């Protein structure tokens, strides 16, 4: 049977266009959808570092993956701190047009908004230090300045897929109709609901379920925490203040994990910098007085924290003599009252845990300093004796974990993976079941990397960052096969400085920030 092109020019061109579309996979038609916004450290409240879907990045499209743009900003580095990992607002209707923005914090108390379609600066704002005590000059352990990544309102429920952006609607097939004589349009009595009103000031719709709580949409503010410990809510349109400043924690602290979720703003102070103890802090953003509560670890170093979908705060502590050391704590939302905990002497949890749900069960996973990965039941951390983990992997012989957290994702076959950045590589663990008990098994280890940061997974592609920090001249971004860890792509010598923060990702793009105060974007080019 032979294939013949249709006779008419128009029919022929339709067939050719369809054939070309099938050949290239993407590009001839609009996706009209955005990836979920990366709104906080680790991407979401659970710190999964997983962008569940992206309309452009995939294993199939990797041959098109490339350097897109870089933007050097006027921030001054402090110690080894420079820029924070970008957080994204993919679709904002501003008075200057619809913008796709990433926001980057600068160690010198700066905030930058970048139009990520073009890699151009949209606005910049400098936050004046306003605490009563002088601003700390900084040390390697306590660099001072802005240390916490920026955050936007983050939903407690992780995103489940792509969202139609702006005015985009699901495609429907075109059709022509004709009515009866004298009866008007065949659609005189439309039964379809009215189209949504045009004009929206919110982020891409549909990516995440509505925020919990009072049913009001979360603010579109960009939250920044400069050296003075006073939270600034910035208007994403201009960078101007959008709300009254409010003190979250003591000045000159080193802060990690800043997140706004369910009307509460959380952050963790680490390294006992300034007058700030090792602690988790929570501000009731909904209350006029912006009251702050804290949970102090009695000196145990805090590795980081993540939130469950019910708002529970899971905080990890490192080694030490404190009774709170080597533990994972479950804290009540907002009040930070201890709900339960898990303790393992010598575990030294030096990074943030991750939280995920499989089936009806929610898990907390955290990496110990010796490379062991602990899997805990979120509903009863450590069980009744506070010592029982669901699963633990063996310690690593030649590697140690770092202060960078695990990443976790589920592959298309339904397998849950944990990716652990260690001192020299990324190791991947698979969650499976043996004798009806969860088991974590190491599946692969990546090529050697220099001080790798937490990897990110974008629509099934693992991106790992060899930061170069401390030992290398420049950072290198790698795309890895999620099943084997093999290299699929790398940025070579494109990046000319070492990375000072972790990766983040947005629609069609992956971001690296470097010590020389440059933001680098790699991704799939989209015609502008």
């Amino acid at each position, binding site marked *: 049977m032979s294939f013949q092109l249709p006779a008419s020019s128009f029919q022929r061109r339709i067939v050719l266009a369809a054939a070309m579309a099938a050949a290239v996979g993407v590009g001839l038609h609009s996706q*009209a959808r955005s990836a979920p916004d990366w709104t906080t450290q680790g991407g979401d409240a659970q710190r999964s570092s997983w962008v569940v879907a992206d309309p452009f990045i995939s294993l199939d499209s990797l041959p098109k993956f490339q350097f897109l743009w870089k933007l050097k900003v006027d921030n001054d580095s402090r110690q080894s701190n420079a820029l924070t990992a970008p957080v994204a607002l993919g679709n904002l209707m501003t008075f200057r047009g619809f913008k796709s923005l990433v926001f980057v914090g600068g160690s010198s108390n700066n905030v930058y908004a970048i139009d990520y379609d073009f890699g151009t600066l949209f606005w910049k704002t400098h936050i004046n230090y306003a605490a009563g005590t002088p601003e700390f000059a900084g040390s390697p352990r306590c660099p001072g300045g802005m240390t916490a990544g920026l955050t936007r309102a983050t939903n407690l429920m992780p995103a489940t897929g792509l969202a139609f952006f702006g005015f985009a609607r699901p495609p429907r097939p*075109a059709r*022509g109709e*004709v009515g009866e004589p004298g009866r008007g349009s065949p659609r*005189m009595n439309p039964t379809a609901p009215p189209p949504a009103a045009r004009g929206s000031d919110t982020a891409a719709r549909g990516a995440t379920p509505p925020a919990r709580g009072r049913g009001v949409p979360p603010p579109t503010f960009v939250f920044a925490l400069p050296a003075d410990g006073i939270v600034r809510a910035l208007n994403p349109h201009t960078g101007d203040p959008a709300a009254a400043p409010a003190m979250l924690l003591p000045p000159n602290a080193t802060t990690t994990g800043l997140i706004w979720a369910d009307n509460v703003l959380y952050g963790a102070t680490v390294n006992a910098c300034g007058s700030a103890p090792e602690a988790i802090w929570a501000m009731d953003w909904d209350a006029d007085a912006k009251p702050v509560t804290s949970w102090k670890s009695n000196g145990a170093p805090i590795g980081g924290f993540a939130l469950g979908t019910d708002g529970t705060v899971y905080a990890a502590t490192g080694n030490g003599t404190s009774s709170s050391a080597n533990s994972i704590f479950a804290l009540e939302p907002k009040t930070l009252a201890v709900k339960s905990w898990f303790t393992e002497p010598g575990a030294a949890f030096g990074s943030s845990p991750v939280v995920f749900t499989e089936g009806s069960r929610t898990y907390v996973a955290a990496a110990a300093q010796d490379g062991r990965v602990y899997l805990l039941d979120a509903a009863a951390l450590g069980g009744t004796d506070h010592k029982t983990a669901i699963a633990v992997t063996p310690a690593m012989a030649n590697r140690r974990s770092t202060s960078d957290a695990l990443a976790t994702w589920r592959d298309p076959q339904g397998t849950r993976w944990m990716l652990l950045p260690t001192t020299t590589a990324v190791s991947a663990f698979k969650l499976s079941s043996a004798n009806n008990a969860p088991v974590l098994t190491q599946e692969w280890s990546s090529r050697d990397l220099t001080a790798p940061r937490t990897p990110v997974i974008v629509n099934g592609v693992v991106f790992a960052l060899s930061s170069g920090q401390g030992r290398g001249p420049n950072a290198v971004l790698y795309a890895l096969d999620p099943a084997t860890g093999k290299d699929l792509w790398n940025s070579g010598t494109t990046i000319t400085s070492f990375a000072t923060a972790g990766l983040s990702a947005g629609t069609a793009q992956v971001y690296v920030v470097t010590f020389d105060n440059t933001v680098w974007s790699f991704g799939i080019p989209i015609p502008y």
Partner: protein
Amino acid sequence: MRKIGIALLVVSAGIGAARLLAQTTAPLADWLTDGGDSQRTAWQKNERTVNVANVKNFKLLWKYKTDNQAREMHSMFPPLIVGRVNTPAGPKQVAIVAGISDNIYAIDVATGRLLWQHHFDTTYFPPPGQTPGTLCPGGITSTPVIGPSQTPGTYIIYVASWDGRLHQMDVASGREIGPSELFMPPNGKPYALNLFKNVVYTTSAQGCGGNPNLVYAFDLATRKTATFDPGNGGMWGRTGPSISRGGLIFTGTGDGSYNPEMRSYGTAVIAVKQDPSTKILKLADYYGPPNAEYLLKRDLDLQVTGPVFEWKGREFLVQSSKECRLWLLDTSALGGEDHSTAEYRSPLICNEDQNYQAAGVYGAMATYEDTAGVRWVLVPFWGPKHSKFSAPIEHGEVFNGAIAAFKLEADRNGKLQLTPAWISRDMNHADPPVVANGVVFGYASGEDNVLINAPPPFGAQPMTTGTPGRVSRSNHAVIYALDGQTGEELWSSGDQITSWNHFSGISVANGRVYIGTFDGSVYCFGLAQ
């Protein structure tokens, strides 16, 4: 000596009488549809009075204040002109003007006096609690269209009223010719009607009234209404669809998914055609810009009525959008084999910020051929010109908008291009121009078209938004007469027009230019007799 004087007087009177006779017997020009013709060229081909030399003598001939009530920001639509209508009082040149509150006015062009007015008794009553908005004002939203009847000297106005019904009215008397016809659902937002081979076409947008965005066609012979749904995107070219000589109906589709594999044609230019036997509208062709994804994301709709014209044996369509570039498309194969390759794609003319509001090309363009056979394309745009766009002749810095003029040319390889020729003076939001006898009439609408203002400092009062704020910040319209070859300003209405307009237009015929304004007025400028 006295005999010689008398003889001269007689000769002079004879010449004057001959001129008068010529003027009264020569066919007068019409402007029967928004954009001047079905192709939406906005070119008055039959102009014999105004020219580049005498337009400087233009003055306000009359101003008529109607009782039309504005709805939201809409008020009066572009006047339509019938050069010679047989009325009970003899032949008259008549201006027909639609007012958004379901009103039609007929004005005697010679005197500026009302001949008749008509208000449609609506069959649509908004449900309790329903409020209009800037984008969905209710009322008549489409400029009517006029066609000749079978009796010489008589004409029919076709009007779509608020309730979606199609009315046919006698131009001379305002009498409705038969009962109105069911046409569209009520409370929608159709754009200017177009009449082609006994079929009334329009397009709709904004989903007003909960209605889908469709191409509509009312077949006057069979009374059948056909619709075409592009699958996505509203069609809000200000002067409605343009139509080729072969009956292809062209429209840009605004924000919507461009996904031809799923037969979804948002953010595109589509061509549909009526099947002569079934009357159904079928997709004939389409063009999807290569950056459709980006245009959709940034709300840079293809919302412009693109004119259709012939050039050296081929037929072309020029289209644009809020993005502010031009696409030259061959009507026989829009976008080439892959539907995304234009014959010519211009650089950005304006809208450097790529804003969805107050910048870019809005409304409709114009095209004409000068006496030397050069094909011109006139592009009105809002906001400053792009810093990288220039023309050999410019008339000062552009802040608020201007008209950019292009010549259609072929390079030495035969590749077509639109070559910038001139950029006009600054205009406070340049709206669709019209052309007559080498004179380009452009106009600044004077409206405030900022939907979203810069957010105020924390704690400060925001500016009034929506219709009330925009109405309060609007100024007044100005009509400019420009030399079509150079863009030089030859005349302007200055501050004689005391109100502004929104999504309306101007029209030109027989040495006069017309505009309707927000306050319900109709202005006529021209050469004093």
